[in-house]
């Protein structure tokens, strides 16, 4: 595995180029597993495109809310150095030991002195269009990228600054800057940085629709791009989240989205690829816009194929249509005209029946595609990284995060157009690939986390600080946050109160630390979003301020406040005050909690010996960790062995064979064939499981587990499957072609039917791989016999991303595509001579067409089997369709809520081979974050028994689900083993004398909360 110079150790540092969500995730995974990371970002702060998005599909999570904690973690990480703005200018050396030349353009404001007070921007007289707001609002020449960016430091844009333009005049910022941070003679710097590997995560640029003269993007103000629309919807955007159109700032009543602008188009641009995300973001924008609209918005999406192929996307699409009333029209628009005397636009389109229609809209949103920017192409040239025909980084489906240059990895939209979860997976995957290369240098450059001395507050009366968050307008738009703040000041033990625009931003963390010091606070309450996402962030801030991190409470006034009581602001405010009062009463009673360290078993367990399982096992083994690989069957390889080719044409079998050989021969991997996991005990870092091999049990100790049990083809009960020998499933067709089945080889016509068992009420999901698989097989049949008539009967052709090239190739080769709807599915009948007759309603002619194919392939759904037992053993959830449900759809795509357990491959959701491999590597990276540590922390929220009060009734011993409580005969009292205690508190509720306390949730605290919730003194 090592590509380093003979005998010399590789460099234990990695450079991540680009700091959008992918770059940030890669940096965090590496920094958390023992490497020093340089993050090179071309803008003045990190966050990328995700920071500019309003909400994210399919959960409609607030984009900034879920991203911000990651940015803060990145910004405060001891082993991450952010260089922003900066660009890579050159590279030399070899994998394991590169020297990268980085240019850092002058900021003209010294970040060390800047306190981000914003006075420079206030005083700056020069207004310029704000790129972050897509030019819809102005910023000043002295500016900050956006208010939550990291590092939160201002900069001067020399290209527009009057001082630089007018030869030394103005200097308003310098005059007013309270810290003397402005440095007009700041110079660009160049640095040579030594790293062992480079990860490219430079992202994409949106397609510029200016050349589409027919859409009048530049001429009509109410024709906007989807990115502009994101900013219009955003609470922190130019219109503060009010849905208005740019021309007259009035609320639009009819908005249309036009799909595939700059995608799937070689006529007006060079982008043959599908951008893979636009269908979903258009639906999301339509749904959110309807929510924002006060007077009922008509939202219409004009599309060619609806590509909702991700996890939970199909249901999102159905809900948008059926529940939220978004209108979907299958048509590509060709003409947009002004409506004289108004700011409206009229569009002309042809519906599916061929009728020409005219319709007037207040506003058009162009769903612009994703492409590689010229800067990034230049970066690729500088680094000697090859691009493919669509100008994304060239990768192989078998090594999806490796570029053409060894030691240089890629993730995110530069690898190919993709959504956030896929980018995050690849980010972790690229971290895994880089770690494998640099394992020998782990912890050689990374610094250890400092211990912050903890102030002893046990003798102090409570001094509580309450911070009430605006969350932009997420909270402040409904709840009177100033009133909540003022109310908090009246509560017992509250010494300090304050409002924050975003309590989660990095500058607020610094501010909270300062306030703790200034006011000698010893407890903190933040009234904001939800403790489920943000408690760890604030607890870390307390720790850094020298307070025990448990001296904290979060009052949920957003997710369970402003967002659910939008129409009753007074009552929402009243509830917020009550929740704050309850939190204050609880935290006042909170004592510091002690944590201790537990050793980690540095061994990984992987369940499933398919490609995902093997890749996950190798990912860990190549990083030096021992791995147990458990496979139910008597061979490794899984369903991949039944596939012929990746969509890009590479043969799969040789790759799988090589993988099996590497796994079997790897000294760190122990393969258990014919085996199943039958018992799991323990917890992260210290699992003890039983692997049963043909009746024989083996005890296995491991620190982490990866579930990669794969998926299976659904066996349909329709379309004469198993009734007529000419009917095949997709994998059976691969086999028939592989074995040169005469039925197929001699066929004069072939039909493929898509969505067999997928996208039906019973299975409301898209199986993601079937469109591409059928198109690929159809092309192969055409190559076999160009005269063969090949038909694909489909509902939406979902050849997403660069797979669109294959679809194009199929059409060029004469494969015929016929669309059908769910309510008019094709009919398959057996003819008298045992042949097949397929009848389908042609959507253009509106007439039934009959085809007599000699072979019929059913693209059947992918399902998951035998997963419940495993889910129960690891206590991880499944979704309604039976797939494993990850901790967070967007940002934790391979983690479970249960620590130390991860998921990869088809058990998570149907996906093609390249994505399975990326996810498996990602799971390895996430597991390595744990296995690379020396110990894990335990304690904190656990139960304790007061032996003075314990009567020895042993009721607690009976109810503990974890066997953590023992009865000490000699003393006649019960005792809790803190390493085994998971902190559920069932024992505390059982104890008749209330002598068991769940620390952090004590009886006293609960009674205080109850009393305060119901206290008569009405809050406001």
């Amino acid at each position: 595995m090592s590509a380093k110079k003979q005998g010399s150790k590789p460099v234990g540092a990695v450079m991540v180029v680009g700091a959008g969500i992918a770059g940030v995730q890669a940096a965090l995974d590496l920094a958390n597993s023992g490497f020093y990371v340089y993050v090179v970002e071309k803008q003045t702060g990190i966050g990328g495109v995700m920071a500019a998005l309003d909400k994210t599909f399919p959960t409609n999570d607030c984009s900034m809310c879920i991203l911000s904690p990651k940015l803060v973690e990145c910004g405060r990480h001891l082993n991450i150095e952010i260089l922003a703005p900066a660009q890579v200018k050159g590279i030399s050396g070899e994998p394991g030991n590169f020297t990268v030349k980085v240019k850092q353009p002058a900021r003209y404001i010294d970040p060390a002195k800047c306190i981000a007070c914003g006075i420079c921007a206030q005083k700056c007289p020069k207004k310029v269009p704000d790129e972050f707001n897509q030019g819809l609002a102005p910023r000043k020449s002295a500016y900050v990228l956006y208010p939550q960016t990291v590092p939160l430091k201002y900069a001067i844009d020399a290209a527009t600054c009057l001082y630089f333009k007018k030869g030394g005049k103005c200097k308003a910022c310098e005059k007013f800057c309270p810290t003397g941070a402005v440095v007009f003679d700041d110079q660009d710097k160049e640095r040579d940085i030594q790293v062992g590997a480079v990860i490219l995560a430079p992202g994409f640029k949106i397609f510029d629709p200016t050349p589409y003269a027919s859409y009048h993007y530049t001429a009509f103000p109410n024709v906007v791009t989807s990115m502009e629309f994101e900013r219009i919807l955003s609470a922190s955007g130019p219109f503060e989240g009010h849905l208005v159109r740019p021309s007259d700032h009035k609320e639009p009543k009819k908005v249309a989205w036009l799909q595939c602008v700059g995608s799937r188009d070689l006529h007006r641009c060079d982008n043959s690829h599908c951008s893979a995300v636009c269908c979903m973001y258009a639906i999301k924008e339509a749904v959110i816009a309807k929510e924002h609209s006060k007077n009922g918005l008509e939202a219409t999406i004009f599309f060619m194929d609806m590509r909702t192929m991700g996890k939970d996307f199909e249901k999102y699409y159905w809900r948008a249509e059926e529940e939220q009333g978004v209108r979907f029209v299958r048509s590509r628009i060709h003409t947009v005209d002004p409506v004289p005397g108004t700011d409206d636009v009229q569009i002309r389109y042809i519906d599916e029946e061929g009728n020409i229609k005219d319709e007037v809209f207040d506003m058009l949103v162009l769903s612009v595609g994703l492409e590689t920017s010229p800067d990034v192409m230049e970066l690729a040239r500088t680094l000697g990284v090859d691009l493919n025909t669509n100008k994304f980084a060239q990768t192989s489906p078998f090594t999806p995060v490796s570029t053409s240059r060894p030691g240089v990895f890629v993730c995110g939209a530069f690898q190919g157009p993709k959504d956030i979860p896929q980018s995050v997976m690849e980010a972790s995957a690229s971290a895994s690939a880089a770690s494998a290369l640099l394992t020998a240098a782990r912890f050689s450059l990374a610094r250890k986390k400092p211990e912050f001395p903890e102030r002893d507050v046990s003798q102090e009366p409570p001094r509580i600080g309450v911070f009430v968050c605006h969350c932009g307008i997420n909270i402040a738009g409904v709840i009177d946050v100033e009133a909540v703040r003022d109310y908090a000041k009246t509560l017992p033990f509250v010494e300090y109160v304050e409002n924050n625009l975003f309590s989660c931003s990095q500058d607020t963390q610094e501010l909270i630390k300062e306030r703790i010091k200034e006011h000698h606070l010893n407890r903190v309450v933040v009234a904001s979003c939800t403790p489920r996402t943000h408690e760890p962030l604030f607890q870390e801030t307390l720790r850094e301020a020298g307070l025990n991190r448990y001296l904290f409470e979060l009052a949920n006034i957003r997710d369970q406040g402003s967002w659910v009581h939008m129409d009753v602001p007074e009552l929402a405010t009243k509830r917020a005050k009550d929740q704050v009062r309850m939190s204050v009463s609880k935290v006042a009673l909170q004592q510091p909690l002690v944590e201790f360290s537990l050793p980690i078993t540095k061994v990984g367990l992987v369940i499933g010996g398919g490609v995902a399982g093997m890749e996950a096992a190798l990912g860990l083994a190549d990083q030096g960790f021992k791995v147990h690989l458990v496979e139910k069957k008597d061979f490794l390889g899984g369903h991949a062995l039944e596939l012929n080719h990746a969509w890009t044409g590479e043969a799969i079998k040789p790759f799988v064979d090589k993988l099996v050989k590497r796994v079997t021969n790897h000294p760190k991997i122990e393969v258990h064939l014919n085996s199943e996991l039958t018992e799991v005990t323990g917890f992260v870092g210290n699992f003890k499981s039983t692997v049963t091999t043909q009746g024989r049990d083996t005890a296995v100790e491991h620190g982490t587990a990866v579930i990669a049990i794969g998926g299976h083809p659904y066996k349909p009960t329709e379309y004469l499957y198993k009734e007529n020998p000419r009917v095949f499933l997709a994998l059976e067709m691969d086999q028939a072609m592989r074995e040169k089945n005469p039925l197929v080889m001699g066929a004069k016509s072939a039909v493929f039917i898509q969505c067999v068992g997928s996208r039906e009420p019973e299975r409301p999901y898209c199986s993601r791989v079937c469109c591409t698989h059928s198109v690929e097989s159809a092309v192969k049949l055409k190559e076999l016999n160009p005269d063969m008539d090949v038909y694909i009967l489909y509902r939406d052709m979902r050849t997403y991303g660069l797979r669109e090239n294959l679809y194009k190739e199929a059409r060029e080769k004469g494969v015929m595509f016929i669309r059908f709807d769910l309510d008019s599915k094709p009919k398959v009948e057996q003819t008298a001579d045992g042949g097949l007759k397929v009848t389908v309603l042609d959507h253009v002619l509106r007439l039934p067409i009959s085809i007599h194919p000699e072979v019929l392939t059913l693209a059947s759904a992918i399902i998951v089997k035998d997963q419940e037992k495993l889910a129960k053993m690891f206590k991880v959830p499944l979704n309604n369709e039976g797939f494993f449900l990850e901790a967070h759809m967007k940002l934790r795509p391979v983690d479970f809520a249960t620590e130390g357990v991860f998921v990869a491959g088809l058990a998570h959701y149907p996906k093609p081979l390249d994505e399975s491999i990326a996810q498996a590597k990602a799971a390895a990276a996430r597991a390595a974050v744990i296995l690379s540590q020396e110990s894990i922390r335990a304690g904190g929220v656990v139960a304790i028994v007061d032996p003075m009060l314990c009567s020895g009734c042993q009721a607690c011993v009976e109810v503990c689900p974890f066997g953590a409580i023992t009865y000490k005969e000699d003393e006649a009292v019960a005792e809790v083993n803190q390493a085994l205690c998971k902190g559920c508190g069932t024992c505390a509720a059982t104890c008749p004398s209330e002598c068991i306390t769940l620390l952090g949730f004590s009886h006293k605290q609960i009674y205080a909360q109850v009393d305060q919730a119901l206290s008569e003194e009405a809050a406001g």
Partner: protein
Amino acid sequence: MADSNFEPRILAFLCNWCTYAGADLAGVSRLQYPPHIRVIRVMCSGSVSPHHVLRAFQKGADGVLIGGCHIGDCHYLKGNYMTIKRMRFLQDLMKFVGMEEGRLHLDWISAAEGPKFAQTVRDFTAKIQKMGPSPLKQAARAA
């Protein structure tokens, strides 16, 4: 309705892993429900003792809602079995002392069931509104 002005006081004990997350999801999905509820987050519904619930009624709660994971989904394996036992016992006790047992409501709401959480709060609030103020509160006032 005579009781339309009655603003009931509803206290909810929600488990951290399922129902509290479901309540967050209701927020993320912007599902609206009546604002008379106050929430106490607990690690497991099995950690809510009968004393906690009784204290709520003593202090004037008109209704108490307990939310936990579905049976089989408990993050702590079987905490919610304890919840069922305790809450059934409590309801019997309430009946015994002459209180409507419907003022205590137990429901299983998962992290994915935002709509169910919102609907549960709507239904429970309406039910309590119909029942009127808790007799314990009236008794306390009379005393």
